[in-house]
């Protein structure tokens, strides 16, 4: 009976999307339903979190077709951790949207698309089936295409074209990888795949092609997460999308790629090993993760450097935030890379990545919303038109400052613990003899310094200095500022009350590596 709560968030978001589409003639009712839906979504996620805390893993077989034949939805500590982040960010962005988007835009289709985006994200976090993951990705992407092009001006159509074409090619590649996986392993269910990969001889699986196909799939997830070298769509798309959508894209949909990497590579593919070991230069060991570890490490390093250097030289606030987003995702992938290479710190590394993802999700969405507030009031976020915001609107500036400090990693904000755990993972890996731990530490330190550099530049040019004419005459919407402050407060609360968050992240990390429980819960009849 309790398993039904797994589909509650999906249903709430889907019903909200349909209702907002039907109510488009009645804009006040539509907005009310949209906000009620966002609240209901948060409530259903809270229910799910409580249920998972109670039973540790919940499995819902759609229509009663048992895995591996039917579609399975699985909620474990890892899924609900990501869903919790989604609930907070999507609620804040929905409230912000109601005050920010133009009346006509909201009536048109904004709310329906927004909730469909949430449906796609939720489905991706809950599904236990690889083809189903592809379908949820498409649901998420289709709504995000339209949301990126929402303003429909010259630069928006250009960014959306780039974003759409890239993601369509990504989807085709994902389909190729899924077909290959089905052909080589004979199943699409993640638990079943993990079970079969653990005993390749029994099921007649050759692990070598599986590794290659897993690598192709990895490129798709890296594209979704915007990790270098698949980052080039990020700046244009984030700048073109409306501020609450950028907040969702940077805060939540990027994390879907990270979630897919953790779930598939640490839970499913980690079960497999190559019989002859990896005979590639620079790669050691015989596990699949030992292959992806160094690759992730290089990608994370490139993301940190490219994102940081790119952000320092931007001329507008949204550009700084978009490039910073590339750099910060590097900080999420770095502990994952260490976790993949050094098995001793695997749980710690995943927990560090999750905490960092949570911190980035909250802080970056808040910064995008703050930037949107400035754009609405001043009319531009280019630094040449800004200046003196701190004196004109101290409350909003405090919000921005808190978000920037959280990304820099100043205690007691959540970002401090994220950075601390990243450093701890690298140090622990070095202590047990992991290679490259010193480079990881140096990278994390260099990245942190770059973060300080671009945020102090953004602060100096936008918030200090002489007030420009546009800033002096601007009026700030109290609702929008309130949303920004609420998210800033959330950052402080997460930082001060860090213990439960750390417990949740640790539970999520152990759920990610605890393959046995996952397989046994999804496929109860095959386990002895």
């Amino acid at each position, binding site marked *: 009976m309790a398993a039904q709560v797994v589909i509650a968030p999906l249903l709430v978001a889907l019903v909200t999307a349909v209702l907002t589409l039907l109510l488009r003639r009645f804009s006040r009712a539509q907005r009310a339903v949209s906000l009620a839906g966002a609240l209901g979504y948060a409530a259903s996620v809270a229910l799910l979190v409580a249920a998972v805390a109670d039973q540790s893993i919940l499995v819902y077989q759609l229509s009663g077709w048992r895995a591996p034949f039917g579609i399975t939805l699985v909620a474990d500590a890892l899924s609900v951790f990501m869903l919790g982040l989604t609930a907070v960010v999507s609620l804040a962005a929905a409230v912000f949207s109601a005050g920010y988007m133009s009346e006509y835009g909201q009536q048109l289709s904004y709310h329906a698309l927004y909730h469909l985006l949430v449906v796609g994200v939720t489905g991706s976090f809950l599904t236990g089936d690889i*083809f189903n993951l*592809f*379908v949820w990705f*498409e649901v998420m992407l*289709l709504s995000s*295409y*339209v949301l990126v*092009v929402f303003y*429909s*001006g*010259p*630069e928006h*159509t*250009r*960014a*959306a*074209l780039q974003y*759409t*074409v890239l993601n*369509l*090619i990504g*989807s*085709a*590649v994902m*389909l*190729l990888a*899924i*077909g*290959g996986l*089905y*052909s080589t392993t004979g199943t*699409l269910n993640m638990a079943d795949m993990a079970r079969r990969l653990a005993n390749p001889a029994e099921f007649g699986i050759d692990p070598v092609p599986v590794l290659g196909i897993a690598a192709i799939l990895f490129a798709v997830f890296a594209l979704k997460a915007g990790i270098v070298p698949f980052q080039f769509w990020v700046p*244009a798309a984030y*700048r*073109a999308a409306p501020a609450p959508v950028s907040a969702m894209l940077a805060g939540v949909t990027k994390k879907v790629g990270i979630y897919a990497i953790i779930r598939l590579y640490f839970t499913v593919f980690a079960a497999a090993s190559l019989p002859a070991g990896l005979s590639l230069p620079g790669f050691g060991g015989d596990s699949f993760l030992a292959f992806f570890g160094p690759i992730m490490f290089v990608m994370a390093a490139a993301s940190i450097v490219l994102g940081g250097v790119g952000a320092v030289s931007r*001329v*507008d606030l*949204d*550009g700084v935030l978009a490039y910073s987003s590339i750099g910060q995702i590097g900080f999420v992938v770095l502990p994952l890379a260490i976790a993949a290479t050094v098995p001793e710190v695997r749980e710690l590394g995943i927990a560090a990545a999750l905490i960092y993802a949570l911190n980035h999700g909250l802080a970056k969405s808040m910064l995008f919303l703050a930037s949107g507030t400035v754009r609405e009031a001043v009319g531009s976020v280019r630094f040449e038109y800004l200046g003196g915001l701190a004196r004109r609107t101290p409350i909003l500036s405090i919000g921005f400052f808190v978000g920037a400090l959280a990304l820099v990693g100043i205690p007691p904000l959540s970002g401090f613990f994220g950075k601390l755990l990243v450093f701890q993972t690298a140090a622990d890996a070095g202590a047990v003899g992991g290679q490259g731990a010193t480079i990881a530490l140096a990278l994390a330190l260099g990245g942190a310094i770059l973060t300080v550099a671009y945020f102090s530049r953004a602060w100096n040019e936008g918030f200090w200095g002489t007030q420009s004419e546009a800033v002096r005459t601007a009026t700030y919407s109290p609702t929008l500022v309130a949303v920004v402050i609420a998210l800033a407060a959330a950052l402080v609360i997460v930082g001060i009350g860090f213990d439960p968050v750390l417990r949740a992240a640790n539970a999520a990390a152990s759920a990610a590596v605890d393959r046995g429980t996952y397989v046994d819960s999804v496929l109860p009849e095959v386990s002895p």
Partner: protein
Amino acid sequence: MTQFVLAGVLGLLFTVGTFLVLRRDIVRVVWGVTIIAQSANVYLVTMGGLSGTVPIVGHGPPANPGSVTDPLVQALVLTAIVIGFGTTAFALVLTYRVYEEHGTIDLDELGETGGEV
């Protein structure tokens, strides 16, 4: 034999798709993406193995019940095709909007006139 023919056709389709994606004309790029997506669908069908009979159990016992082509991949392809329809329609409408906004569908010119937000 079917496998070899299909492998050749798939290679050709991917080549044509890639060639079109690298063109300057947006309509061709959209066509290229569509062709790549469709070749992925064809590839998916081949993943079920093509040696068996049609995956339909008709009246009476089938001639050789042991060797039926896997019907699951065909169900998957149906889903992928439906998604493909939606995305292709969107990509074409987007192409039209790009033409309206920029007055060109040449990607090089688009790069020059686009500018920063």
